[in-house]
């Protein structure tokens, strides 16, 4: 039963409430991207530059990040600038995990 804002995914951040290592997040994301697009990507390549990925793909990325890293991405955090490259997505994951941990412990 959904009682609050837990519809996004079964939350599974690191059990101690800490954030995932950004390097680990990047590696996982690069694996997902390669599997989904059949292309290998550089961490700083703009995924949505001209001729790039579709809006369906953007939504898939949002959902994948939420499920893989136990975060919930909402509101202004859904702006495209947070998803353009693997590096900025890893930064988003780290920030949201830290925020979630802060609100749980604080």
């Amino acid at each position: 039963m959904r009682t609050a804002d837990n519809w996004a995914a079964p939350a599974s951040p690191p059990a101690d409430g800490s954030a995932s290592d950004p390097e680990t997040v990047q590696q996982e994301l690069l694996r997902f991207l390669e599997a989904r697009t059949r292309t290998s990507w550089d961490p700083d390549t703009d995924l949505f530059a001209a001729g790039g990925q579709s809006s369906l793909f953007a939504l898939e990325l949002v959902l994948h990040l939420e499920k893989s890293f136990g975060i919930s991405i909402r509101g202004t955090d859904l702006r495209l600038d947070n998803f353009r490259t693997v590096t900025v997505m890893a930064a988003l994951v780290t920030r949201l995990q830290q925020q979630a941990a802060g609100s749980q412990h604080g």
Partner: protein
Amino acid sequence: MADSLAAAVAAVQSLIGDRADAWDLARLIPVPLLRELGAAGLLCAQVPTGYGGLGLTSLLGGELTAETGRLCSSVRSVQTSHGIAAWTIQRFGTPEQRHAWLHRLTGGELAAVGFSEPGAGSDLAGMTTTIRRDRDEVVVDGHKAWMTAGHYADLLVLFCRYEGGAAAVVAPAATPGVQVRRIADPLGCRAAGHADVRLDSVRLPADHVLGGVGLPLPLLVTTALAYGRMSVAWGCVGILRACLAAASRHAASREQFGKPIGQHQLVAGHLADLLVAEQVATRVCEHAGRCWDAGSADQVIATVLAKQVSAGQAARAASTAVQVLASAGARDGQVVARAYRDAKLMEIIEGSNEMCRLMLAEHALTLATEEGQ
């Protein structure tokens, strides 16, 4: 959770009853009844209980949608529009906005969403309705076409251009500058309250804009429509169940050439086709619902697939059901005639057949690349 679904299904059955054909003929659903459905949380059943919703999973919410659609596609269309509004607020609203608006959507106020415009249907990049910031207010100007439930709505959730990106804004229908004109003669879902909405210098507090600036229009629309596609897909399952039941009942009782027509092989073939259609649509919707409940990224394509399959199956099956009932079903006020008109619209809204096929083809091409390597 299963108990919640059973109670929700019983409430919908009791409130709609056998009145769908009368509402279809009158082209209106009584507003107090819609408010009662809304206040019971039945128009957006997946909203968490903390906001007054029923907190159903996608899978169980889908079953409720199918039951609503089995009884009345007009009510189900209101449910779809209201549900997209709630989902958009959940996804794009701040915690304060979710708290403020979701309680109203589970408290009896009715909401509708506006995507299409006279010049922007499938190509939403052509959208011109605009939000402009003016100190602590925003001003909305534009024109939304075919807003399902717009005639009934207290709150309009409008998708607009905003400062180089896009945003959804919540506009009370009573705001000066909002003009809602009901479309009195739609082909199907005749009581769903479709409306054209003109927005002329509509001033709203700036905190009515969901999620602030910088959202990309395609992601905003795709996210919102994903909920709507699931709702339409399950609604089509409901149409299929209504058609299967009506055709089977008729074929078992109507006698020609000395036996029930269901024992004539050509008619029997129609019944088999109806059963297959209902099962295929149900299974593909269940798969998508499970992807949603698992939080899987696969839900994106599974949702498009569910919408495409269910709408196509419903449109064909409704035609088949009219064929089986023949003169007994070929007039307004008959369930299969209503299904025939309603199902056709389902091939058009929330991503036309053609748009869904393009998305599925794009997905197929990524799979083909893998085989080639």
